[in-house]
């Protein structure tokens, strides 16, 4: 599932990559950028924690013109007179102008490195509202953000992950080099899937996923309600053949009356009941001898 999330097939998603000081998630972030560039999408990177050269470091030279790095590294708080990009611009409307600046109106991917930096300077409720606004704006196809979860209180991390459609937590694995990625993805219909995988990021920023850790059980996949057909595998026959069906229909039912009797009974009649006699097939009604007691 990690590869699906990195490839980013669905629109309007918000992916959070959670990492800690023990295991860095920046490589996964870079691979997301690389994947988006390969898909020929515009990518805007808000770089607060790394300089622009580091962002462009291992990326393919051909796709570079679609990458736009907003340099918040050199002067994030706007102390100099002409800051390139400040952390306050994230909250204000100026970011919208930057994002919709390209000529083609293809929605772009926004990559934030990192969200922790923004949370240090703005209240978390404001950041959440702003992220939701950016997602709804229509200029963005996807937002991918890096979050250092050991820098914040649990409530802040929880609130942000509550907004996300996919959360990737990177933890160091048992085996030496490989890290484990725990991915939780939530679809719009409310279905939640969770998976844990070993992953490694190669030199060209492609991610290879390896076998899942064996000691964690595979989570149960959601199965639709499959109704077991009780009529299958029986030792007796419950179905009717064609001839049997025809015979069943030909059977005359006991209370089938003639049309007049039916209509007479159906109409609501005041007063006493009326008796309508319909002679049966086996009735032998002789009008001259109604009581059938004359010895003729």
């Amino acid at each position: 599932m990690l590869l699906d999330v990195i490839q980013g097939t669905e629109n309007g998603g918000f992916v959070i990559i959670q990492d800690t000081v023990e295991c860095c998630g920046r490589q996964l972030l870079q691979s997301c950028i690389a994947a988006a560039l390969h898909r020929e999408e515009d990518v805007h990177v808000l770089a607060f924690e790394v300089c622009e050269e580091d962002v462009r470091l291992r990326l393919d030279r051909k796709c570079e013109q679609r990458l736009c790095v907003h340099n918040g590294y050199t002067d994030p708080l706007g102390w100099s007179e002409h800051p390139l990009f400040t952390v306050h611009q994230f909250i204000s409307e100026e970011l919208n102008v930057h994002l919709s600046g390209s000529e083609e109106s293809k929605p772009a991917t926004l990559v934030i490195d990192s969200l922790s930096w923004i949370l240090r300077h703005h209240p978390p409720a404001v950041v959440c509202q702003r992220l939701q606004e950016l997602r709804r704006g229509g200029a963005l196809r996807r937002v991918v953000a890096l979050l250092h979860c050991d820098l914040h209180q649990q409530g802040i991390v929880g609130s942000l992950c509550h907004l996300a459609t996919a959360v990737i937590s990177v933890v160091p694995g048992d085996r030496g080099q490989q890290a484990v990625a725990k991915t939780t993805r939530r679809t719009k219909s409310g279905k939640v899937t969770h998976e844990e995988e070993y992953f490694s990021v190669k030199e060209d920023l492609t991610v290879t996923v390896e076998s899942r850790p064996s000691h964690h059980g595979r989570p149960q996949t959601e199965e639709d309600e499959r109704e077991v057909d009780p009529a299958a595998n029986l030792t007796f026959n419950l179905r009717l053949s064609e001839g049997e069906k025809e015979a069943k229909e030909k059977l005359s039912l006991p209370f089938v009356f003639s049309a007049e009797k039916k209509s007479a009974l159906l109409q609501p009649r005041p007063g006493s009941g009326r008796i309508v006699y319909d002679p049966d097939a086996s009735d032998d009604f002789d009008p001259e001898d109604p009581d059938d007691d004359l010895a003729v």
Partner: protein
Amino acid sequence: MNMAMSVSNTGERRSQQNTRPACNTTSFQKKSRSKLVSIPGTRPSVQNGQLIVSTGVTSLDYVIGGGLAVGTLLLVEEDKYDSYSRMLLKYFLAEGVVCGHHVFLGSARDPPDEIMQDLPAPILDDIPSNAVNMGQVTACDSEDQGSMKIAWRYQNLPKVQTALASSSRFGHYYDASKTMARELREAVKCSTFFLPHELPAESHAEPSPISEAYRLLLRSIQELIRQEGFDGTAPQKSRNILRIGLHSLGSPLWADDICCEEKPTQASSLTSFLYGLRALLRSSLCTCMVTVPSHLIQNRAIMDRVTRLCDTAIALESFRGSERETNPLYKDYHGLLHVKQTPHLNCLVCEAPDTKDLAFKLKRKQFSIEENGFDDYNDDNLVGRTLGPCSLPAWEELTAALKGIFYNMAHRC
């Protein structure tokens, strides 16, 4: 003063409403001693005579004591990924649409129109003609649709509840895999409140116990109540119920930081809002369902206060993503349901289900709530008894009618 109390006559509260349509399958009509205007979709509770509405989920109605009383507030603590609590909110709103109530939806995360477009479709129980039932529709069957082959004595009697307009049943069933038809939705008045559209760009930041977002929401509800006359100013004949659904109150998108901080700056904002909301509800013909992401709220004291301020409180705990998902004990269910609080409305005792060990399962046509039970003979299987009446709603009405008759007899002695 509870608005619902003045609607039902104080003396003869126990009498059942005759909520059947005019063309009956039976000619029995109970003589009601008072001229009460029955609002569609409501009925008096058999336990304490309060006017109650259905929450949209019949099992949940049973668990909270028959239904949601008009003028009260239902709190739903969300499950971790907000899948089932969102479904409950949709059932609540869908029930409002089906009963013809006025619907109000407040949300900060998803646009209310999106939620409204996603409501589940109601299941209508029109009885097909018996000829089709027997499977006898053959090519030589020249009879028309109306005539029946075997039960022809009943063919002139009207079919039961084909049109939703005459639906006076309490509690409906919904098909979660289909969405409600647009005509049905548009037949009902719907008001919405979407916070990003309502919040002004420049906030004035006056110090006040309640944050601006909640204040705007409260004011919007108050204006709606006053305009449409839910506070009793509407004429007797055209009284209707207002159903308010509020999604994910307390989350950071409502500009509230109780989910982020352990010592939030505006700790009493949500509680002040709920206090004001409950005051509004008590004095009008409204009922409200609020979902709160309680798993995010850091300070337990705030959650306890929020629970106290609501009348009925339930909590959903879903098994998705937790280790309980693979536990064989819970394999039949999607999660646990905890009833945190039930109200005492004008009486000393409150109705509670027999057992607190409830589990829920979202099936396609029903949100069922069952008791967790053990089968003594077989430890592997769980015997779940679906709570509440069996799925025939007529049974529920029959038991309610019997209870009403007994109460009447007791009163006369």
